[in-house]
């Protein structure tokens, strides 16, 4: 048994035995810890994984609480009926919010949630239907089979069952196809898009999920407190939820529990002591929490629990055996007649700098075309135009005869274009095999709920088996469970190729695949690319190593100052006067 599993087991045991040793007051305090932990779990997904953060979660808790309270008090609905209503209401609000912010940078979401949290707080306190500042009272407790949740114990049990269930479900989610996409959002969103991840949809889904969790807490809160007023749904509380997540460790699910526990248990203590110390009454605990967060980011930005883990020497990656699985379905082969990829008249200007003028080339299936040229010739810009990273000003882009002009990067990946990047783009703290499996994103289908409930195991096994197969082809299967960031640069480039291949592309774009490789490794790579060519893949590569290019490519296209200056077989290009001038300067 691994130490991590032992620690998890002990934590679950502690949760289970707490009611036997603790009194009413402690149990209800722990119920609050659990409630905060649920909100913080949503923030672990949102902040720690997807790199978005919300200060407005308390407002979503409030929406859940008020919707439930109003439905029960006005329409006499049972709490079990108001729960779906509360979840739906918060989900809809979050959906609208997501619609607004997904295309903008992350800090807009954060600022918008600050404004939203403030607006909602004043709204809760100002409306008649919410009872204004005095709120709504007279709510019934939860009832189950005629048993009322009036004492601390049933509330505690219910909340912590949900917490543990959520940790299980969210752990499943993160360990799935969708989860890998979510984990790419924070640092490598552009790469994930090239792997076929719909970034906007993934961000929205995480945001909505985290808000629905907050709405659940609001629903429970209404029947636990049995009255609802605006103060627990203020911006200050929203800030506190985020602090819990970052204090405990926003990258770990259990970090949410640790952070929620620390803040919730310390708060009454500080509230009692600090006013004595300062000689006046006031919310001085916020000074302490604020100070701790400032210090945290100066010295241990990952949070307490990850810090503890690394101090104990536990790896963040849990290696596990991969179940045998049926091979994934393959893509239809492109038609043999006509080029697999054809570009005519591509043009792109950045302000006054014209990066591509009238660039055109074609790559057939079973052909390797090399795009070469001095630095700044516009090769990488051309790659970005083909893969939809930047929009072209003009030009036709055809994939097997169908136009891909104006398609998103995600759609171009779906149609069969795989790519590697000039600057390696792997998710450093994720295992090599999971990085490769991200390339197979479009070959799976299961959604969030299926992943959370672990009903996606067959698909997962298929995706991971495919990733392992690609790693074996490139000779890196021995490193499958290493942290991708720990590999040598040359190996990371090869992992990128494996990742592109995991998507079963018909066209492969490689941006300087041989950079950083040793001579022998380059020869192995060249052999491998020939093998792929023989399988019918169309390969376009940018490369500076002339020996590598001239020995490998069927045709070479030379660019300079954004234009194609020569194209032909390696021998033709080598003898071209214009090319010689571009590379060696004028002979005359």
């Amino acid at each position, binding site marked *: 048994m691994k130490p991590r599993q032992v620690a998890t087991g002990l934590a679950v045991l502690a949760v289970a035995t707490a009611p036997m040793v603790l009194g009413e007051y402690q149990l209800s305090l722990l119920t609050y810890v659990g409630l905060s932990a649920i909100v913080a779990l949503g923030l672990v997904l949102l902040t720690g994984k997807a790199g*978005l953060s919300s200060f407005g979660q308390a407002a979503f808790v409030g929406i859940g609480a008020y919707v439930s309270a109003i439905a029960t008090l006005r329409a006499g609905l049972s709490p079990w009926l108001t729960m779906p209503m509360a979840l739906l209401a918060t989900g809809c609000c979050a959906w609208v919010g997501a619609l607004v912010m997904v295309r903008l940078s992350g800090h807009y979401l954060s600022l918008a949630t600050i*404004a939203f949290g*403030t607006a909602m707080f004043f709204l809760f306190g100002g409306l008649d239907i919410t009872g204004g500042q005095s709120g709504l009272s007279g709510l019934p407790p939860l009832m189950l089979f005629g048993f009322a949740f009036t004492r601390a114990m049933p509330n505690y049990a219910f909340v912590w069952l949900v917490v543990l269930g959520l940790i299980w479900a969210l752990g499943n989610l993160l360990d799935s196809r969708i989860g890998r996409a979510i984990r790419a959002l924070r640092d490598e969103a552009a790469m994930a898009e090239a792997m076929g991840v719909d970034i906007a949809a993934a961000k929205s889904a995480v945001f909505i999920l985290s808000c629905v969790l907050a709405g659940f807490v609001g629903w429970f809160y209404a029947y636990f407190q049995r009255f609802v007023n605006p103060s627990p749904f203020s911006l200050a509380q929203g800030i506190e939820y985020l602090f819990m997540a970052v204090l405990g460790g926003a990258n770990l699910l259990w970090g949410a529990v640790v952070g929620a526990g620390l803040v919730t248990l310390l708060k009454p203590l500080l509230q009692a002591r600090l006013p004595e110390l300062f000689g006046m009454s006031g919310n001085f605990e916020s000074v302490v929490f604020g100070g701790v967060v400032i210090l945290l980011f100066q010295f241990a930005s990952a949070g307490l629990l990850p810090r503890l883990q690394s101090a104990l020497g536990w790896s963040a990656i849990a290696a596990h055996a991969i179940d045998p699985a049926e091979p994934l379905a393959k893509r239809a082969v492109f038609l043999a007649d006509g080029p697999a990829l054809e570009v005519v008249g591509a043009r792109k200007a950045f302000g006054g700098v014209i990066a591509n003028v009238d660039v055109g080339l074609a790559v057939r299936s079973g052909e390797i075309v090399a795009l070469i040229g001095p630095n700044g010739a516009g090769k990488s810009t051309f790659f970005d135009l083909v893969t939809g990273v930047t929009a072209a000003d003009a030009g036709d882009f055809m994939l097997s005869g169908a136009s891909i002009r104006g398609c998103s990067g995600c759609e171009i990946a779906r149609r069969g274009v795989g790519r590697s990047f000039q600057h390696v783009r792997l998710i450093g703290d994720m295992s090599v095999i999971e990085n490769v499996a991200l390339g197979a994103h479009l070959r799976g289908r299961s959604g969030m709920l299926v992943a959370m409930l672990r009903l996606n195991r067959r698909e997962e096994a298929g995706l991971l088996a495919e990733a392992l197969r690609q790693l074996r082809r490139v000779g890196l299967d021995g490193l499958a469970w290493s942290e991708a960031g720990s590999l040598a640069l040359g190996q990371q480039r090869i992992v990128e190729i494996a990742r592109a291949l995991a998507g079963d592309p018909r066209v492969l774009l490689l941006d300087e695949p041989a950079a950083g490789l040793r001579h022998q490794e380059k020869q192995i790579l060249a052999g491998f690319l020939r093998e792929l060519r023989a399988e019918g893949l169309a390969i376009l590569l940018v490369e500076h190593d002339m020996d590598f290019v001239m020995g490998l490519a069927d045709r070479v296209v030379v660019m300079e100052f954004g234009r194609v200056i020569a194209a032909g077989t390696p021998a033709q290009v080598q003898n071209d006067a214009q090319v010689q001038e571009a590379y060696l300067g004028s002979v005359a």
Partner: protein
Amino acid sequence: MNAFVAAYLTQDGLANGAIYCLLAIALVLVFAVTRIIFIPQGEFISYAALTYVALREGHTPGTVGLLLALVAGAGFIDLLREGFGGLVSVVRRSLAPVGLAGLAAVSARFGLPALVDLLITVALVACMGPLLYRIVYRRIAQASSLVLLIVAVAHHLVMLGLGLYFFGPEGVRAAPLIDASVSLFGVPVQAQTIVILLSCAVLVGGLYVISERSFYGKAMRAAAINPIGARLMGISAELAGETAFLVAAVIGAISGILISGATTIYYDSGFLLGLKGFVAGILGGLASFPLAGIGAFGVGLLESFASFYASGFKETIVFALIIPILLWRSMAKAR
């Protein structure tokens, strides 16, 4: 509503809009140079208002203690970073703020003219800007803007608590700088409104000239447009950050003094004002000064008319404005 009420609301909205305009400019400046979403900007307002009124009333303002605490904190961190070899420079850096704190403590006893109190207040608050940058942000200047934002929110909470400790919970209201009223097209206009609008115009104009013409202004613009390039040209990111915070603190201090003549300010009043500056700043994507300025007057007018039609929902309406603004921006980006 009749024309008289409309004129009155417009006047009120423009005065508030001018304050939001100043704040929005400070926020956009700090964001452009340091990528920090500077939530604690509002605290400069309340600190300045409370300091100014304390000086007018002949008390030693809480700012004195706070400033000394910040000097001690920054000095301690500098010594940790530089070792005792840095002692001389730490002392040299501390002289001005400590001297200023002493001056403020002494001058409070003499009942000096308002203009002197005003200058002392601005100087005291201005000193805090660079010190806060050194203490809180210098070490994490390269962190993601998300981390910087979380730290800024934490920083705001600390400033809020310290504000309560050093200034107490009572609200203050200063006598207007000029207590008079003139009639414009038959509508009485408070002199304070005119003072606020004029100050805003002068400050904005001054900042424009400084950033276009002066050496420091150009260096700041360079640091904002291309931080790495600016650093390669010898512009220290640290200096740029401290200067941005200095300007933000000066703007906050002047806004605080201006607004304390028009409304009662508590230790926690600044936050909502600063947040409204952000709503305005976002209109220009936290990058465009003119759009931020237009947004600020829009926010001021909206707030003023909302307080007439739906006073209970004034804040909700102003902050909910951010949703259509962001929607517009995200559609502009999609195109």
